[in-house]
């Protein structure tokens, strides 16, 4: 009965077509960028306005609290020097090495802890405890252990970030939905294949938020470290800021605050992009 099959086929195809959502135009790129950008510009404008108002009110002398215009002129001058970019390079190199080391260590610890129940009982809560520990508390010990060296800074950066990375992985593995695990069982996944095809991909979103949080912790630890542990010869952003303070150059101090803020935001944007790309692929975003 060829006609019957044809009818059935048309029914199925028709139903599929009806149930799929029609595609919607997203609008021009410029418009979309503007829509997401203007609240940020507004926020910056509000901050600048409050700052300028404080200057106008002469709450503090002008050499202590300089006006935004002064600071931004200084900032313009500073970031056009090669010297400044050298400082950024030193700081970012530390940040990336520290973070990468933390990711490797955190991933290994997370994988081990989620694998072995006794380890979990022993270390699981310790990891959470470490996370709440202000990183600056580690510096005295780090300095005693490693003197004023790069290692001292790395030590603290890793201690700051690794627990978040480990926790992200552990909770990702813990909260793999039961139905997926059952599918894995039905498909006969065991051992390595189960990790490769089910557990690891399923825990990816949680792992990425762990990375993001780990980055935030490592960045904070690094800044604290650069102010406290001054390694001779390494003119990092923190050292430059400290020098500006020693010279009572408020404007320059604020410049470096802005630089650190901007770097932090830029990296955060990177993580959010990765996170959003994943969510879109998984269909967790209403697009």
């Amino acid at each position, binding site marked *: 009965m060829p006609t019957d099959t044809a009818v059935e086929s048309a029914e199925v195809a028709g139903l*599929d077509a009806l149930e799929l959502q029609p595609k919607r135009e997203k609008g021009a790129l410029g418009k979309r960028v503007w829509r997401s950008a203007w609240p940020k510009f507004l926020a910056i404008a509000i901050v600048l306005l409050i700052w300028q108002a404080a200057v106008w009110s002469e709450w503090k002398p002008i050499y202590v609290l300089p006006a935004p215009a002064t600071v931004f002129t200084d900032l313009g001058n500073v970031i056009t020097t090669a010297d400044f970019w050298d400082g950024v390079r030193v700081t970012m190199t530390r940040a990336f090495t520290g973070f990468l080391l933390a990711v490797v260590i955190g991933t290994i610890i997370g994988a081990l802890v989620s694998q072995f129940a006794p380890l979990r009982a022993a270390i699981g809560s310790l990891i959470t405890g470490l996370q709440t520990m202000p990183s600056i508390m580690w510096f005295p010990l780090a300095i005693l252990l490693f003197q004023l060296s790069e290692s001292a800074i790395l030590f603290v950066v890793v201690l700051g970030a690794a627990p978040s990375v480990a926790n992200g992985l552990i909770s990702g593995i813990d909260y793999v939905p039961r139905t997926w695990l059952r*599918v894995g069982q*039905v498909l006969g996944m065991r051992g390595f294949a189960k990790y490769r095809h089910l557990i690891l991909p399923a825990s990816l979103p949680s792992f990425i938020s762990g990375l993001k949080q780990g980055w935030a912790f490592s960045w904070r630890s690094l800044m604290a470290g650069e102010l406290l542990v001054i390694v001779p010869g390494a003119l990092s952003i923190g050292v430059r800021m400290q020098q500006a303070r020693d010279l009572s150059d408020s404007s320059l101090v604020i410049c470096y605050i802005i630089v650190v803020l901007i770097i932090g935001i830029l990296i955060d944007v990177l993580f959010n992009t990765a996170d959003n790309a994943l969510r879109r692929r998984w269909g967790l975003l209403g697009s």
Partner: protein
Amino acid sequence: MSLLQQKTGAVVRLENVSKSYGDLLALDRVSLTVAPGEFVCLLGASGCGKSTLLSLVAGLDGITGGTLDTGGRKVSLMFQEAALFPWLSVRGNVELPLRLQGVSRSERRQRAEELLGIVRLSGFADKRPHELSGGMRQRVALARALAQDADILLMDEPFGALDAMTRDILHDELERIWREQQLTVLFVTHNVREAVRLGDRVILLSSRPGRVIEDYAITHARPRRIDSPEVSGQAAEITDRLRAEVARHAH
């Protein structure tokens, strides 16, 4: 193949199978044989252990007593949720069982293409699961189950979460695929009409503990319609029996 099966030609054979979880007896001496190519529906109210029964046949769980024999045949199981993996495309999901079996890339691709054709989703291979409707996802899950190349397909209320229209059409689809692929299906549902619409046999289970209380042969000619007088008539009869069973638990 065991001696028993050579004699009877059964694909699945349960004899006095019991299953208890601690003190709770979920299944009580259930006996059931499924012939090759047969479509058997397991029907019962809540607590009849029909999902438990499927888990046992699928080998996800061990039996407490009796004998369960599938003759070492491959078994595949489908759930109410499609449970497709969101990190894989539709094609990737269908290919996954083949990948686990170590099938080569080109062969995998070809087989997945075939399977998607069988469930009429040929044009959707590169979509993500979330881009599909519930009914389409369930068909991808069916293609994934077929990719396991199993002799026995177990289905645990696979259409329970779908709207009536979609369910109707998927009944036709399942019937067609079952016929074309010569599958043996064990289908769990609490929907009496669905059971009569699809099954060669409808096995009625009692609740708490689960026991086989009736075994209806459904002999209406296929293809059937869920709203045909024959299906409705027999469904009404079975519903009465099911209600009587449910009422027994009133006290």
